[in-house]
């Protein structure tokens, strides 16, 4: 005759369940929050108001509109622009000569702007933004 052995049931201590739940919450919270972010770094000279335009005449000038890029007066598509800016900056060794002044139309979309600015940086240019400052003139 077989004797049935009594099963030993081991319950996890109930007092620890709140600790376990708390640690699980924290774990998932941290996992959800600490997501690695991706992007690109951009080096910008410190903003300053310039009134003297003598030195700026040597710099490359880029105008960005929603549909095209204008480099020193000639309108280009993005691929063409990449080649032209690379060629233009290749011969320039001095940091001051590699400054590229960028002027954007107010309606220029961010994804387009970021592609143009990345092209300038990849070509070795130093990006400088030309912003239009607002001036209120009272007419008497």
């Amino acid at each position: 005759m077989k004797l049935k052995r009594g099963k030993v049931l081991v319950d996890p201590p109930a007092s620890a369940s709140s600790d376990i739940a708390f640690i699980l919450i924290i774990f998932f919270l941290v996992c959800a929050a600490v997501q690695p972010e991706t992007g690109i770094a951009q080096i910008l000279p410190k903003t300053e108001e310039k009134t003297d335009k003598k030195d700026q005449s040597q710099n490359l000038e880029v105008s960005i509109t929603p549909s095209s890029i204008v480099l020193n007066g000639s309108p280009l598509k993005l691929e063409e622009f990449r080649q032209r800016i690379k060629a233009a900056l290749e011969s320039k060794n001095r940091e001051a000569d590699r400054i590229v002044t960028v002027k954007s139309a107010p309606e220029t979309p961010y994804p387009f702007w970021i592609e143009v600015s990345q092209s300038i940086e990849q070509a070795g240019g130093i990006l400088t933004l030309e912003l239009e400052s607002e001036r209120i003139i009272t007419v008497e």
Partner: protein
Amino acid sequence: MKIQRKKLTASIPSFAMGDIGFLLLIFFVILARAQDDSHVQWQPANLKEVEMVASPLASVTIDTGFKTYLDGKQISNDELASSLASLLGDSPAGQRYVFLKVHREAKAAHFEPVIAAISEAGGDLIHILEPKDQIQ
């Protein structure tokens, strides 16, 4: 004759030390993430070549309504440069990282003044973007 009283010692259970250490670690990790801007709605633009970026001292976001936020709090473009400068403090150049999160539909009129403010505060600008391949 003196009867010696038995000394009672109260020791901290050593098996709990791991749990205590872990909880403290988590506590400080959460405290370090003070600049929470997860409630701000925005969609990143996509770019082919992006790289992993270091943790920032401040984060500036332009949301779907083209409003500007500094570490999750709405701020005007005029106040941004001074607020950023005080946040960045005396941190050395090269470690003054500022994340710029611009909604993909934003226009130059929205993001250029913000970039100028970051530049004025002496921040090291990092555009937060998504790699293009992830979407396609």
